[in-house]
């Protein structure tokens, strides 16, 4: 599903990742962890082609990501659900419209959009807040809107960058339950986090990135 083959990346001559190789199988839920600045977010950015590797190859399903042309990137991204650390919710749109945006870009008609958005909001238990604007929601609720937006188009891969960063334990637990649920339906889930509470005793694969390399892999 996702393949990193000898991938290196640096910013302004400062190495972030050095010769990273990683295979993630379809339907996996894995955690990428490590200290701040270890390159967790960069790994995710390389997957959705927000960054390009300096060397090596990255493949996502059938896409050779490292060789994608500009006009091919949108199609890749339409098949990846992304949960951003800073949410990236549009403050001038309601919760419903924020989630609907992910389907509008597919050219879906409004009737279908309504059906799938309501379904997604119901799944994250925010159906009653569909008409509110994001700024009137709590941090946990905003994060659930982002998850609903990421999963509404049924992506093949879900990437989450520090999804529980500012959340309390209860909210973090609820978010993790959502990821497990999404993963159980066949979606490959990749979570970048520094919070080891998330993967401790999860029984899932954990990739520990440190000092630009994959230092170790283990089952959490």
């Amino acid at each position, binding site marked *: 599903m996702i*393949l990193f083959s000898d991938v290196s990346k640096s910013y302004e001559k400062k190495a972030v990742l050095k010769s990273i190789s990683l295979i993630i199988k379809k339907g996996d839920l894995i955690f990428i962890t490590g200290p701040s600045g270890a390159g967790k977010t960069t790994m995710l950015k390389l997957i*959705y*082609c*927000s960054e390009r590797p300096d060397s090596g190859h990255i*493949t996502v*399903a*059938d896409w*050779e990501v490292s060789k994608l042309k*500009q*006009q091919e*990137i*949108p*199609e*890749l*991204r*339409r*098949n*990846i659900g*992304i949960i*951003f650390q800073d949410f*990236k919710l*549009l403050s*001038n749109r309601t919760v419903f419209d924020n989630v609907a*945006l*992910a*389907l*509008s*870009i*597919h*050219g*879906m*008609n*409004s009737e*279908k959009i309504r059906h*799938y958005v309501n379904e997604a909001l119901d799944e994250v238990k925010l159906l009653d807040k569909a008409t509110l604007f994001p700024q009137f929601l709590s941090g946990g609720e905003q994060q659930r809107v982002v998850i609903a*937006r990421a999963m*509404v*188009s*049924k*992506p*093949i891969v879900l990437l989450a960058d520090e999804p529980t960063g500012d959340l309390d334990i209860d909210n973090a637990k609820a978010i993790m339950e959502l990821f497990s649920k999404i993963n159980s*339906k*066949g*979606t490959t889930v990749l979570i970048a986090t520094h919070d080891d509470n998330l993967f401790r005793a999860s029984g899932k694969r954990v990739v520990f990135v440190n000092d630009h390399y994959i230092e170790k892999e283990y089952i959490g």
Partner: protein
Amino acid sequence: MNTTSKSKGAYRSKPKNTSNGAWLEITKYSFKTALKSLRLEKWINLLTILSVSIGLTIFCAFIIINSNMSSALQRWAKSFGVVVYLNEDINKEGEDKLKNHFLQDTDIEAVNYISKERSYEEIKKTLGSNAMILDVFKENPLPSSFELKLKRGYLDPLLVKEKAAKISQLDGVQEVQYGEKWLSSLNTIAKTIKLGSIVFGAAIFIAVTFITYSTIKILLHRRKDEIETLKLLGASSSFIRLPFLIEGFFIGTIGGTISSLAILGIYSFIMYKMVEFLPAIKFVVTSLPLFVYLTIPLGGAVMSLIGSFIAIGKIRY
């Protein structure tokens, strides 16, 4: 890893919409977004529409003045003729020969023969009560002549000069006269009007395009977070561009329509007021043909679309 096809699991493929209606839905979405932006950013859009309409109104007023000046020039040009004075001793055969020569010349539209006697009568009529001064002449001093009307395309001063020189070489021709200076001035005015139209038209085109360009640039800046999110969600460049292009199209069309109505109103008002003092003006001053009024909104739309297109530039992921 399988690289031959983009395999889609049942779960993934469920909500995808790849039907032909996708483009229709994206267009509908873009129209809705553009209309919403026109409403939300009403002040900047109103200002742009106003600027576009002022620019186009000035341009239309210029076209009306220009077309009226051109038709006045054409009316003057119609009266232009070359007079060929014949030798005193030319006989009937010589005159017929010359007449045939002129009739066969494809550059000449009309040939009018004026005999000595007719010339004398005409000058007598012109002099009126002063006609007695002609009595000093024992014989009719005026020569017979041909008045030639050249074709419209042949009113270039150089061509006329060349033609006059050739005619003066013909047997039986004493002198060829035409308003050389008059023709030259007429030509200079016509050329100035033509050049002015091109320069002014280009200036208005650039102005309207730039006005829309600036507005769309501002709107793009204001919505840069939204565009960034759209890009990350996988929106195609056309999905991002289309609402801005439609907004530009609306700005140009509305601006053009206001301009059409304004110029029609101003023209009607001026004519209404002027007719009171100069009743003949309605026969002299003409408005623009109806299709031009319908073309102005289209012109505004095209100019604004170009401005929007340049403003959006290339979408980079």
